[in-house]
Each structure stands twice: as structure tokens, then as C-alpha cells.
């Protein structure tokens, strides 16, 4: 019942976003080749006016390819690895000793709670049969009609999310994305948000922000996908979405006590390095897994993901070396994560040179935000969720419109550098819509949770540390 109300509300707000977004209401075309699933398996979108081909037949259990299915299941596990332990330790190492458990707890509980949300109704809202290009309906709630042995088939568009793997494989892969996205926001409000408020906000945000945006871009007949926006593995859906929500959360919650000058440095950089390195590994599932098949496209996505990450880590280190006199380890890992974020939307559409370009940009732009703009503006994005994911994600989504080429993925599109400036415009629109929606709805949700239960930990609790006050535990003992 409560769920239903949120869902209606989500629809209302989504409608508003579309109306205000003027130019986005383009006439939906019949074929969409933008979802990664389709990109992997669809034939090149060549219109054949004379001899119209017979409608493709729905895939059956016989069509399940064991190689594809194995890769997607492994990728699902790799994407889970990105939340726990990778993101948990990346963030956990960057907070102060007294808050390490609170951050690990937030990441772990998301893996629990969003997984349940996903099978109950989240998956259906995001990927279920389309309602007015805005949201899925509830036909797949409780995974009803989501087969364990036959691939998905959408009768309206006569296409499949992934024609060679069981529908539930696609569902569990997407579940891991739904888990990590609210997890990324933790970086912004770390060390000062009450656990109870965090939990309520995360569930609301996953339902009212993540699920609709995922539908717009990836769902069958979602309006951003129809518009031709390219987002291979989640630049807009995951990173811009979470990054912007992070910025809003940081602003609504306010600064931590003592920020910026009376704060201890990261309490355990080796943890952060461990986490970042595991993110790098897990991201191969995120990006190469988004091919939803184990063929050449997965290989290409794997390669460009790796190259962009390397370029970005190196670039950030050089930026530090030039402007702060020393290359820092925190800089290298921040750059690498920024590179992973930026290559995400582009990973199925760009070649290696494009990946280097995207990586270099991802080492420079987030660096500028984190080093110059954030201190100037004074907001406390504690672990730079916005600075790295919001900025890196925006750069990646735009860069996809620059470097995308059909030589990599015939189901994609050419970008500006391949003679198609229109794609850049489409990317900008998709970025704009996501930013506006995430900004407005995240703000409203935070205000509601604040009114009902209060967002921020008591000042005394913040001083003592959330490990002890929210969980009655400590990460480290001093005496044996």
C-alpha cells in the first residue's frame, strides 16, 4: 500500500521532469538499440523498406547460451564485489577510526535491503512492461513472469533484454547495479547521517529515483533510451544519478563538525587502496558484463575499461605531482575510480584511443572539482561521491557522445569525433534530465525523511563516532 503510493508519486514527479524537459518528448521510434542488452545481440539497425523482415521470434530455452550465461552470472558476482567489500573498504578507509564500521555497515545493509526491494518490486518498476515511457508496471513484482530458464521477450518492441541468457540472470545482474548505486551516495554523507534515516532514505531513493531512471534509459520503451541516449553500463543511471544525490545530501545535511580544518585525515589508506583495487576488478563485471554475452563486445568493453582506468590514475597522479609537489596514493586511486566511472557509459561504444581520452579527462575534471571547486564552495562532500562519481559520470556520458563509434558496436551510434554531433546533443539531454530529476527528487526525499525522523546524528554522537552511538561496536580495540 505504502509502496503503491510511492510508485504513483514517482510517476507524477517523472511526468513533471519530462514536461519541464521540453525537448525530450520526441516521437518514440519503434526500434531501440540503446539498451546494453540489445546492443549486444541485436542485428545492425538497418531499415529494409522493400522486403520487410518477418518479426523476430521470441527466444526459447533452447537459445540459452551457456557461455553467455556463465559470464553474466560471474559478472553479477563481480558487481556485488564492488559494493562489498570494495566500496565498503574504499570508503571505510577514508573515514575516521570512530566511523569505519558505520560505513561498512551502510554498504553491507544495502546489499541486503535493496536485494529484497529488487525482487519484491524494484526490478518490475525498472525493467517491467512499460507505462508511458516512464516506469515499468508491476507485472514482474515478486519475480512473477521472470523465467529461470528462458530469456526475456518484449512483445511490444519485439526484442529481448538479453536473448541468450535466462531472464533471471539478467534480473540478478541488474540487481547488483541497484545495490551499488545508493551505496555510492554514502561517500557524501559519511560520518554524520543517522543510520535509521539513512536506511529509510536509501529504500525511498532506490524506489523513486533509481528505478524510474533505470527504466528511462535501459527499460524497454523508456524515453531516454528511445531518444537514442547511449549508456552502456550506467554513467547516467548509476553515477550521475548517485553523484547528484550525493551533492544534494551533502548540502542538506551540512558540514561535519570541524570541517574542513579540524578533521583527522583518512584513518586507513591501505583499506582505501584495497577497496579501490577491488573496485577495478569488480568493474570488469560491471562494464564487460553489460554486454550480456561473452563475445567480442564484452572483450572490447573489458579492454577499454582497463585502459581508461590506467590513464585516469596516472593523470591524477601527475596533477598531484604538478600542483601539490608530490604524487599521492590517494590521488592515484581516486583517479582510477574516476576513470572507471567515466568509461562506464562509453565502455560498449568506444575504442582504445577513445578510452585514453576519456581516462585523461577523468583524471583532470574530478581533480579540479575536488581540489579547487569544493574548497571554494565549502560544501562537505565527505569522500567526494559527487566530485568523483557525479563529475566523472557526467564527463563520461558527454565523452560517449564524442568518441562513440559504430565500428565498435553497430547497435550504438557515432559520436562527434566520428561525424555525428547530434549524438553529443542527445547525451547532453540525457545528462540534463538525470541531473534535474535526481536533484529535485533527492532533495524532496531528504526533506521528508528529515521532517519525519531527522537526518543528522546528534552532535554528541558525531563527536563520539557513529560506530559506538549507532551500532554499539568499535572497529579497533586499543587494549587486548
Amino acid at each position, binding site marked *: 500500500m505504502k509502496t503503491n503510493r510511492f510508485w504513483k508519486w514517482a510517476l507524477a514527479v517523472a511526468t513533471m521532469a519530462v514536461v519541464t524537459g521540453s525537448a525530450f518528448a520526441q516521437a518514440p521510434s519503434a526500434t531501440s538499440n540503446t539498451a546494453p542488452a540489445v546492443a549486444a545481440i541485436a542485428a545492425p539497425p538497418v531499415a529494409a523498406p522493400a522486403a520487410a523482415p518477418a518479426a523476430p521470434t521470441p527466444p526459447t530455452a533452447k537459445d540459452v547460451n551457456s557461455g553467455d550465461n556463465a559470464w553474466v552470472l560471474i559478472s553479477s558476482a563481480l558487481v556485488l564485489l564492488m559494493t562489498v567489500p570494495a566500496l565498503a573498504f574504499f570508503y571505510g578507509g577514508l573515514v575516521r577510526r570512530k566511523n569505519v564500521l558505520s560505513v561498512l555497515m551502510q554498504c553491507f545493509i544495502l546489499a541486503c535491503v535493496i536485494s529484497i526491494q529488487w525482487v519484491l518490486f524494484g526490478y518490475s518498476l525498472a525493467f517491467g512492461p512499460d507505462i508511458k515511457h516512464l516506469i515499468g508496471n508491476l507485472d514482474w513484482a515478486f519475480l512473477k513472469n521472470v523465467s529461470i530458464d528462458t530469456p526475456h521477450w518484449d512483445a511490444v518492441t519485439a526484442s529481448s533484454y538479453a536473448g541468450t541468457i535466462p531472464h533471471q540472470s539478467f534480473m540478478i545482474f541488474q540487481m547488483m547495479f541497484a545495490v551499488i548505486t545508493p551505496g555510492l551516495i554514502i561517500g557524501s554523507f559519511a560520518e554524520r547521517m543517522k543510520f535509521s534515516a539513512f536506511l529509510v532514505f536509501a529504500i525511498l531513493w532506490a524506489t523513486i529515483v533509481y528505478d524510474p531512471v533505470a527504466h528511462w534509459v535501459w527499460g524497454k520503451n523508456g524515453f531516454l533510451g528511445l531518444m537514442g541516449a547511449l549508456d552502456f553500463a550506467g554513467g547516467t543511471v548509476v553515477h550521475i544519478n548517485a553523484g547528484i544525490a550525493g551533492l544534494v545530501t551533502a548540502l542538506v545535511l551540512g558540514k561535519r563538525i570541524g570541517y*574542513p*580544518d*579540524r578533521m583527522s*585525515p*583518512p584513518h586507513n589508506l591501505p583499506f582505501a587502496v584495497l577497496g579501490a583495487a577491488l573496485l577495478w576488478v569488480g568493474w570488469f563485471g560491471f562494464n564487460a558484463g553489460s554486454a550480456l554475452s561473452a563475445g567480442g563486445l564484452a572483450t572490447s568493453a573489458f579492454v577499454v575499461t582497463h585502459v581508461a582506468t590506467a590513464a585516469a590514475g596516472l593523470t591524477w597522479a601527475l596533477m*598531484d605531482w604538478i*600542483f*601539490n609537489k*608530490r604524487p*599521492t596514493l*590517494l*590521488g592515484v586511486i*581516486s583517479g582510477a575510480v574516476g576513470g572507471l566511472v567515466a568509461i562506464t557509459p562509453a565502455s560498449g561504444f568506444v575504442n582504445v584511443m577513445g578510452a585514453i581520452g576519456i581516462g585523461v579527462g577523468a583524471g583532470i575534471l574530478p*581533480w579540479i572539482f*575536488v*581540489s*579547487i571547486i569544493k*574548497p571554494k564552495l565549502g560544501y562537505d562532500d565527505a569522500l*567526494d561521491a559527487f566530485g568523483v562519481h557525479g563529475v566523472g559520470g557526467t564527463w563520461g556520458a558527454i565523452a560517449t557522445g564524442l568518441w562513440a563509434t559504430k565500428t565498435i558496436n553497430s547497435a550504438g551510434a557515432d559520436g562527434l569525433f566520428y561525424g555525428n554531433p547530434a549524438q553529443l546533443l542527445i547525451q547532453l539531454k540525457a545528462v540534463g534530465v538525470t541531473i534535474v530529476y535526481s536533484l529535485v527528487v533527492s532533495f524532496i526525499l531528504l526533506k521528508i525523511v528529515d521532517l519525519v525522523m531527522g537526518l543528522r546524528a546528534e552532535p554528541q554522537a558525531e563527536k563520539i563516532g557513529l560506530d559506538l552511538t549507532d551500532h554499539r561496536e568499535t572497529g579497533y580495540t586499543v587494549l587486548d
Partner: protein
Amino acid sequence: MKYIIAIIQPDRLEEVMQRLEEKEIHLVTVTNVMGRGRQKGIAEVYRSHREAGTLLKKVKLEIAINDAYLKPALDAIIQGGRTGQVGDGKIFVMNLDECIRIRTGETGGPAIG
């Protein structure tokens, strides 16, 4: 009886301990500490944010000692701890009222050795 507190460079600890050993001074308590003096700290930088008020790692030795051993102990610490650089540390000497060995209940000078 005296109580010595010495703050020294961490990398001089081995040297100081060896010299104390040579002078048959075995009772010592060592702690990792943070501090700063004229040497000042080295500012750490995290994502371009310079940390204010940095401290340096030092080692603190605490030694309770009978008066006869004071001079040898101070010599050992100075010889072992000195590099001639700013930041070599300081030694503080205080009078000690009482010392009790918990195992036997001995008090005073005999309890120290």
C-alpha cells in the same frame, strides 16, 4: 631515585636501548607518541587538502632509576639519540618518591633494579 622521561627519534631507539643495556640499565618502558618541537611537522596532503597542525612520530622512554645510575643513563640516551639535527628530542628528569615491586612488595631502591 629519579624518573627519566626521554622523547627521542623513533629510528634511534635501537641505539639507545643498546647503550642502556651496556650500562646494565634494563628497566625501561617505551611508547609510540606523536609530538612536535622546533622541528615542526611535515604537512600531509589528502586530495589536495593540506592537513593543519601536523605532528611527528616520536618514541617516549620512561626509566625509573637509582641516583647512582642517573649519569650513565643520561649518557646512554644522549649518545644513542643524538644525530645533531633539529628534532633529536628532550630528556626530563624528576624526583621519584616511591617504587614498589608488585611481586614481592619490596620498596625503594632495591625495587628498581
